C-alpha cells in the first residue's frame, strides 16, 4: 500500500445534499426568472386587451351558434381536397425521409469524423429549424404561386429540420462495434453503414418518419390557409364567405378532426409495433 492511500476518515458535520449548492442556486435563479417573465407578460396582455371580458361568453355562444349544425352534406364536395391534403403530407414526408438520410449521417458525430463537414451540416439544419412552417409556406407561395407545390416544398423543408436532427441523434447512440467489424472485414463505407448501422436505427427511423407524417397532416391543413392548396384553402375560402358558410366550415373542421385522429391512431399503433 502506498502512502497516499492511508487517508484520514472524512469528518462529516452533516450529510451532504443530493444537489451541490451551486446547482441549487442556479435552479432557484432560473425559477424566479421564469415566474417574473410570467407576471410581466400577464400584466402586459391585460393592458392590451380591448373591451370587457364579461361580454366574451355571450359573444362566443352567439358566434359558435352560427357554426351549428354543421352541414355534413358539404362533405361530398370536399373529399378531393381532403385527399389532396393527405397526399401532400405523404409526398412531403416521403421525400423528406429520403433526403434526411445523407443529412442525418453528415450531422452525426460518430459517422462524420471530419469535423468541418459535421459542423457545417449541423449549422445548416439548425438554421432550417428556426424558420416556422408558415413562413416557409408564405415564401414558397410567393415563389411558385398558389397551389400544392409550394405546400409540399414547405413541408419538405420543415420536416427535414426535425427529422434530420432526431435521426442524427439516434445514429449517435448506436453501438459502433459492429461497424468496426464490417470495416475490418473489408467493407466499403456504404456497405459498413448499410450492414452495421441501418439495422440498428431502422425501427427508430420508421417511427420518427411516421411521427413527422402525423405532424405534416396537421401542418398541411394550416398551410392550405395561406394558399398552399388542400383542405385548408377550402376552409379559408368558406370562412371568408361569412355567416352563411359557417356550417360548411364546421363540417370541414369535423372532417379534419376525424381524419387527423384516425391517422394518429394508425400511426401510433404502427410505431408501438416497431419499437
Amino acid at each position, binding site marked *: 500500500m502506498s502512502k497516499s492511500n492511508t487517508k484520514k476518515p472524512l469528518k462529516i458535520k452533516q450529510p451532504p445534499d443530493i444537489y451541490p449548492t451551486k446547482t441549487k442556486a442556479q435552479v432557484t435563479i432560473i425559477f424566479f426568472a421564469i415566474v417574473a417573465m410570467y407576471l410581466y407578460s400577464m400584466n402586459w396582455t391585460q393592458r392590451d386587451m380591448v373591451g370587457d371580458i364579461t361580454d366574451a361568453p355571450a359573444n362566443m355562444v352567439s358566434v359558435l351558434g352560427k357554426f351549428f349544425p354543421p352541414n355534413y352534406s358539404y362533405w361530398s364536395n370536399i373529399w378531393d381536397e381532403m385527399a389532396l391534403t393527405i397526399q401532400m403530407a405523404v409526398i412531403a414526408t416521403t421525400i423528406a425521409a429520403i433526403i434526411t438520410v445523407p443529412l442525418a449521417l453528415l450531422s452525426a458525430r460518430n459517422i462524420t469524423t471530419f469535423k468541418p463537414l459535421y459542423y457545417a451540416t449541423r449549422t445548416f439544419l439548425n438554421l432550417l429549424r428556426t424558420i416556422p412552417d408558415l413562413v416557409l409556406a408564405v415564401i414558397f407561395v410567393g415563389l411558385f404561386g398558389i397551389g400544392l407545390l409550394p405546400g409540399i416544398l414547405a413541408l419538405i423543408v420543415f420536416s427535414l429540420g426535425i427529422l434530420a436532427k432526431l435521426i442524427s441523434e439516434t445514429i449517435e447512440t448506436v453501438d459502433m462495434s459492429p461497424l468496426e*467489424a464490417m470495416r475490418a*472485414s*473489408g467493407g466499403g463505407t456504404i456497405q459498413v453503414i448499410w450492414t452495421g448501422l441501418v439495422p440498428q436505427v431502422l425501427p427508430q427511423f420508421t417511427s420518427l418518419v411516421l411521427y413527422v407524417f402525423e405532424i405534416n397532416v396537421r401542418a398541411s391543413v394550416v398551410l392550405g390557409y395561406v394558399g398552399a392548396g388542400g383542405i385548408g384553402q377550402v376552409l379559408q375560402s368558406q370562412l371568408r364567405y361569412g355567416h352563411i358558410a359557417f356550417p360548411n366550415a364546421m363540417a370541414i373542421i369535423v372532417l379534419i378532426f376525424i381524419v387527423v385522429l384516425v391517422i394518429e391512431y394508425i400511426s401510433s399503433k404502427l410505431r408501438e409495433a416497431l419499437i
Partner: protein
Amino acid sequence: MIEFKDVSLVYPNGTQGLKNVNVTINDGEFVVIVGLSGAGKSTLIRSINRLVTPTNGSLLVDDEDILKYRSKNLRKLRTKTGMIFQNYNLVKRSNVLKNVLAGRLGHTGTLRSIFNMYSKKDKSLAYESLKRVNIEEKVYNRADELSGGQQQRVSIARVLTQQPKYILADEPVASLDPPTSHQVMTYLKKINKEDNITTIVNLHFIDMAMEYADRIIGMRAGEVVFDGPASEVTEKTFEEIYGRSIREDDLRGGTES
C-alpha cells in the same frame, strides 16, 4: 508473411503505442501476444489490418508495405485479414446468418450487399462455417439472443466465411468464463491447423498463452520484450515481460470442457 520493420506508432495525443517493433510472423504460425493492459497488444494487431496506422518504419504483409495503402488496397488487405474482437462486435438486431454473411463484404459488390444478393456459394459457405463451430441451429436467431460464448462462435464463423489468410484475435476470451474461453481457443487452434490460417491472438492469461501458442511475443510499453517458442517460456519469462511477480488474475484457470 507479416514483417514489422522498426515499426513505431505515436497516437495523435502523443502516447507511444509501438516503439521500434521488429517481428516476423511466418505463414501458418499460431502466435500469442502477451503483456499487461496498455502494453500495446491491440495497437500491434490493429496495425496489421490498418485499423490504426503506424507513424514510422515499414510493415510488410506478403512482401508489400501496407503503410502506403489507400482505400482500395486497404479493402483488399482487410479482406484477407479476418478479425475477432473481445466484444464479438455482432449486429445485435440482425440474425446469425446475416451477421456471418457480413464476412463476405470485402468479396461482394456494394449493390449486391445492399440488396442481400449473396451468391448461393456464399450462403452455403456461411452455413458450413456455422457448422464448424457447432452453432448452425441458431442460424435464424437474433444475435442478442445468444450467450457470450455463442456470440463469439458466430464471430468466428463470420471470419471463416471471409476465408482470410490471417486471423487477428484481440482478447477473444476476455469476456468469457474459463470453460467457454478454452472452447473458443480450441476452435481458433483447430482452424489454424486445418485451414493453415496464420493466427495472432492477444491474451493476458499466462496459462492460456502457454497452452495454445506455438510462439509467444511479450510486450511492455509498446516494445517487444520477448519473442520465442512457447516451449521455452516459463513463469520467470512472464515475470520479466510483466515486470512484476505473477498473480492469481494473470491465470484463466479451468480446463477444456
